[in-house]
């Protein structure tokens, strides 16, 4: 590393310490924060753990991502970053819930998404909305998700939102995390929201 670069880092750290409250967020703050849209997934009748209602998750910070289990690159990268963030948070992770919501009802069952999310961390929640629940979700959250490629086969991919959403304890949508944000950076943002 050349010295100018090092100097810039040191100056950066000094500035950040001097103005702690103003240090930038890694994600995008929503200011003013809005009430988060509703999110209700009934899940499998036989397994209450696959059911999720966002308003019932008050008192915890909820990190949400809309993806799918056949996603080979982007979704597992996001979930590994979540796992890294959770490890970095350590004990602070209490009261933070990480939730993957599938946007691929034809292929993703409640059991499959739950098992998929738990591969990254046993505490991660994986939800499979029905077609109707998903349509409502996309409308309420203003997000786009649709199959791409050869949908006649089982090998299509699904376009889905690039960022994750963070809902605070008061049920407000406060932060959006773009896909480039690393685990440690996400942990920093979440710590500030606790």
């Amino acid at each position: 590393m050349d010295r100018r670069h090092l100097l810039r880092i040191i100056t950066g750290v000094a500035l950040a310490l001097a103005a702690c409250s103003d240090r930038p967020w890694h994600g995008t703050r929503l200011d003013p924060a809005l009430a988060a849209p509703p999110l209700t997934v009934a899940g499998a009748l036989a397994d209450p753990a696959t059911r999720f209602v966002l308003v019932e998750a008050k008192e915890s910070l909820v990190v949400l991502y809309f993806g799918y289990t056949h996603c080979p690159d982007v979704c597992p990268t996001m979930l590994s970053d979540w796992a890294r963030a959770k490890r970095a948070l350590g004990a602070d992770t209490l009261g933070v819930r990480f939730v993957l919501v599938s946007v691929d009802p034809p292929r993703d069952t409640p059991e499959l998404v739950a098992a998929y999310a738990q591969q990254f961390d046993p505490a991660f929640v994986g939800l499979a909305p029905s077609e109707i629940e998903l349509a409502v979700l996309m409308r309420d959250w203003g997000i786009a998700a649709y199959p791409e490629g050869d949908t006649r086969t089982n090998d299509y991919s699904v376009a889905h939102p690039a960022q994750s959403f963070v809902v605070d304890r008061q049920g407000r949508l406060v932060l959006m995390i773009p896909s480039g944000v690393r685990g440690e950076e996400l942990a920093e943002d979440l710590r500030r929201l606790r």
Partner: protein
Amino acid sequence: MKSWPKIFVACVSTLGVAACDRPAAWLTDAQATPPLTVTEAWARAADSGATTAVYLTVDNAAMVSDTLSAVTSDVAEDVGLHISMAQNGTMHMAQLRALPVPAQDSVPLRPMGAHLMLTRLRRPLVEDDTVVVTLTFVSGTTIEVRAGVRKP
């Protein structure tokens, strides 16, 4: 993706023309520094039947460019060259027909970008397992890559 016939190192490269003058010297040079090498290869762990990705970096030490044109592997029913990209806040994936590797340059395939996509895995990929993937270039070079499996 269709697999190309294997062609051996001696007739591999675009350096072949220059080599005609002094074949022996060229052969030695070629063995010392192969024009194309692959480093940092790894595969993401996944269940049998699932879809996953292999990442790697292709280094081209030659004075001429080459193009990765085909990828095969026994580990999945389908293997392709893919790229993830964000457009107006939405993530998409697209198939790449080929991936150019410029002369004396390296091309990284890393998460959130270009990747080798393994569709319908024939067996589960577990940590510390190895996946063999064969890369074929337009020059005729084929490289057998051993990618270590890492946690999802």
